[in-house]
Each structure stands twice: as C-alpha cells, then as structure tokens.
C-alpha cells in the first residue's frame, strides 16, 4: 500500500466549477454524455474526406486505445497479487471497455483471452516478456519507475514464486524475483528511444507504447524527452502510489505529489507544442471520481487506479501485502488464501466501482455544462484553488477560489 504520511492532498485544495444561469447545466440522465477516450499519439492535423456519406479521416492514425471511461486499472503484477485478482481485473476491464495492466509479472496463459483489454509491461527485470506476450496485448508499457518507490526496482520474495508464477515470469521456482533499479539498457533519452522503437518494430507499429515514470523533481523535462523519444502514452505515478513491497523509508520520502507533476508536465508539453504527440496517464492515490475529474481538468487523459480497485475487490488496507498472507486472497499466492477471492464477485465489484465513478463523472461534467470528457481535458478554468500559496497556484496553473 501507499505512503500514509500526513503530506497535503492537493486534490482537496482544488474545487470544481458548475454552470449557473448563463450556460445551462446538463442532466446526464436525460441527455447523452460522452466519456469515451482515446489514448495514443494524435496526428499533427486531420485531413478529412467529406465526399462520402460519412465524414472520413484521410490520413492514417497512429494506433489508439479506446476507453469507454477514462479510468484504467494500475499495473499490479501476477505474483504481487493472486491469479484470481488478475482474472477479476482482466474481466472487469473487458466488461467496462477499459484496460488493466499486467505489471512486470508476465501474463498467465489463461488470461491471454483478455488480451484486447490488457496493457503489458516491459520492466527492468524483463520478467515474462516474449513475443506472444507482446502480440497478445493492446498496448505495451515500459516501466522506468514506480510512484511508491522511485529509483528502486521490484522485489518479489521467493516464497511467492510458486509453480505458475515461475512459469509466467520465466524464472526458477522459489527464487527471489528482483528487478534492477534501472533498466540496464537505458541511460539516456536516446537509449529509451531505442527500446520504444524496438518494441514498436516487434509489434509492427500496431500498438501504442507507453512509458511509465515516477513523479519526481524534473518530471516535466523527462516527460518532454519521453515524448520526443517516441512514447505514445506517458504514465506518471505520484508519491501516493501503492506497492506490494517497498522499503518504507523510500515509500514515505521519495517522489512528489502527482498533482504538481501532472500540471507541470501538461504545461511543459503544451509550451513545446508536443502535447498532442502523447496522451498522459496519471496514477497514485486516486480516491474518488472527483479526483479523476480534477486530474483531467489539470491535463490528464486518463487515470490509473490501483488501491481503489483493490479496495473494491475486498482489500482492507492492512498494509501487509509484502507478507504474502493477504487475508482477502488478493496479495497472496497461498492456495488456502487465494481462493477466498472469488473472481466473479471481484469482477462485479470492480465493475460497480467504475460504473459508479463514471456516473458521478457524468454528473460533474453535466453540472459544468460539458457533455464530453474531451471538453474538460486541460481546462484549468474549471478548477479553483483553496488554501494554496501563490507558488502552488502558479505551478497548478489555476486561479484561487473567488477569482
């Protein structure tokens, strides 16, 4: 689980707008609302063909991920979480028309059938990465860093590496699965570009490539480099992001709030005129649908939820994931405990969670007189700050409440 130190939660210092008199609000129960979101590189400009009955886009579009709601399930590896939990995430993603992320644990063969709803990760340990894995997925994510433990690698204790996991990860049974802190082939933006294009080549340019980093001090500059290196999606993980296992000193003291990282990255990419070249996903401590709406107003395209999804499945946030003795059958490989999580029930709960959030998002959009999530993206005029210093307001690019 994530950082629980009393750092300020900036979402709670942001307030949303609503329509009154001059622009009518919309009732989402009576009028259509659009939450559909496409993730991926957008072309410089659109050439349209209006000769036929329907308007057609003439120039070829780079590969896109189509989401029915701008909420995705965060990277949680098979190993860190149980097979049943993975299956529930996969099923829920499919039902919801969104995506879940394998983390760096590889993909269990039984879950290949959910490939169209799967984002697969290529991380520093390269666990479970092979051609079929890449081909099955809808998108590939290169993991550079994780919000819960920026600067360090992953650690799956050998006790959790049971038969199925060893096969999926392609490592010997019972050995600790330690992924290195850096990607040993990436020491520069140019190196990152090589990996991005290697993956694009391997999948014949049919899938968007995402690059995930932890929110750190120079995120904006790094993000700019990532986009220029060819990333179609950049994922930023804030310091409240959860983890199955991380040294507490790192978890509690390294990284920056996602709100600031997002605002500065969106601002930087806009200033450089490359914002359209990549979509921005944010992760790390999203607690409710208002956080999602605020993030989108700050410039995000979509939001990864991890802890919230786990809580929907039954997690009680006891923060003992690393012991492998999760009582709820989520973060465990113990066969006795694992079966406590019924994937059918967990799927239903995940679907309920995201449906409920989506309804709430529609209500908030309607209140603002907006009928498509597209229209809110990066619209910082929809936000006002409260209890923030001038500097914080400046970084977030918003006005204080009352202005």
């Amino acid at each position, binding site marked *: 689980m994530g950082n629980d130190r009393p750092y300020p939660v900036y979402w709670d210092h942001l307030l949303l707008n609503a329509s009154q008199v001059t622009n009518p609000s919309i009732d989402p129960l009576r009028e259509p609302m659009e939450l559909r979101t496409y993730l991926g590189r957008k072309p410089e400009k659109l050439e349209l063909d209006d000769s036929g009955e329907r308007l057609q886009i003439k120039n070829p579009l780079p590969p896109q991920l189509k989401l029915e709601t701008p909420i995705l399930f965060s990277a949680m590896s098979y190993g860190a979480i149980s097979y049943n939990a993975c299956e529930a995430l996969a099923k829920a993603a499919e039902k919801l028309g969104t995506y879940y992320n394998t983390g760096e644990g590889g993909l269990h063969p039984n879950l290949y059938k959910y490939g169209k709803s799967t984002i697969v990760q290529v991380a520093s340990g390269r666990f479970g990465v092979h051609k079929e894995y890449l081909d099955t997925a809808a998108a590939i994510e290169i993991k550079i860093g994780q919000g819960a433990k920026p600067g360090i690698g992953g650690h799956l204790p050998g006790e959790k590496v049971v038969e199925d996991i060893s096969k999926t990860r392609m490592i010997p049974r019972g050995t600790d699965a330690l992924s290195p802190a850096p990607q040993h082939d990436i020491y520069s933006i140019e190196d990152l570009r090589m990996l991005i294009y290697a993956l694009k080549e391997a999948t014949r340019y049919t899938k968007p490539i995402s690059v995930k980093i932890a929110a750190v001090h120079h995120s904006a500059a790094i993000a700019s480099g990532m986009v220029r290196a060819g990333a179609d999606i950049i994922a930023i993980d804030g310091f409240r992001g959860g983890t199955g296992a991380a040294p507490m000193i790192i978890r509690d003291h390294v990284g920056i709030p996602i709100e600031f990282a997002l605002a500065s990255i969106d601002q930087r990419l806009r200033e450089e005129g490359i914002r359209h070249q990549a979509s921005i996903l944010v992760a790390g401590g999203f607690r409710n649908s208002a956080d999602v709406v605020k993030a989108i107003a700050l410039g995000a395209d979509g939001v990864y939820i991890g802890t919230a999804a786990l809580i929907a499945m039954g997690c009680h946030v006891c923060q003992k994931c690393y012991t492998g003795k999760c009582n709820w059958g989520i973060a465990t490989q113990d*066969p006795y405990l694992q*079966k*406590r999580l019924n994937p*059918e*029930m967990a799927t239903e709960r995940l679907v309920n969670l995201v449906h409920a959030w989506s309804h709430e998002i529609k209500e908030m959009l309607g209140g603002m007189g907006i009928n498509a999530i597209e229209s809110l993206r990066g619209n910082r005029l929809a936000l006002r700050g409260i209890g923030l210093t001038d500097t914080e307001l400046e970084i977030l690019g918003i006005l204080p409440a009352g202005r």
Partner: protein
Amino acid sequence: MKRIFIKEEVCMGCRLCEIYCIVQHSRSKEILKAFKRETPRPLPRILIEEKGSISFALPCRHCEEPYCLEACMSGALYRDEQTGVILHHREQCVGCWMCVMVCPYGAISRDVREKKAASKCDLCGGKDPPVCVAKCPNEALVWVEIK
C-alpha cells in the same frame, strides 16, 4: 428448474453451508436453539470434503436418471413431479442403505440415531435459493437455471 453448481476453486471450507443446512432442517429453524436445545440435531445434508488447500461442499445433485431412486426398495425416495427434486420419506425408509451403496456422489448419509433412515438434500423444500447457496459467503455454491 434451478440446481446447485459447485465451484471448488473458491470454496474456503468455512462450513457455513453445513451450519445453515442444519438450522434449516431443525424444528425451531433458529441457530441457537437448533445447536443448543434440539436433540438429535439434524444431520447436515451437504457434505464438505477437505484436503490440503482444496475443499468443496457436495449436496445431492438431483440427477436426471438417479441411481438412488432405482435402488430404493422401500419406495422412500421419490421424485417430485413438479420440480424434479429427489425427495425422501423418512417414515417409509427402513435404513437398508441401498441408496448409500449406489449414489455416485456419496451424497446420501445414514442417520442411525432415532431410527435407521437415510438423510439427503431436499433443496430446502423449494426455497429459492436453498440456504446453503444463500449463505455461502464466497459464492462457491451457485443457484443456476438448467435446461
């Protein structure tokens, strides 16, 4: 027609089905009275098998062509014409254990306490769903429409 499906993958072996089966077939239908006051306590009509990390609860499958019905020589076992459920007349039963001998699921147990008589699942006499399904906290027993 609905029947019970068993999903061993998610059975935790908590035995709540067994407990509520006993309550349902007790005289008072109240958990404390059934366990503290009533003797003999009804036998559970659902059998729980457990070995290592695997467990599941096994009630009568209410077969389409049941062997128990063929073997029952007292006429105690019969099929309810409307529901197709295989039921048992305790009074008619003589405890010959022919049904125990032929049920391929081993889903019929012997009650030798007051009189010799078989004991089996009656799907709670039409309760929808039966208590074992209703009380299973992890949906390891599910109530599914067949045919």
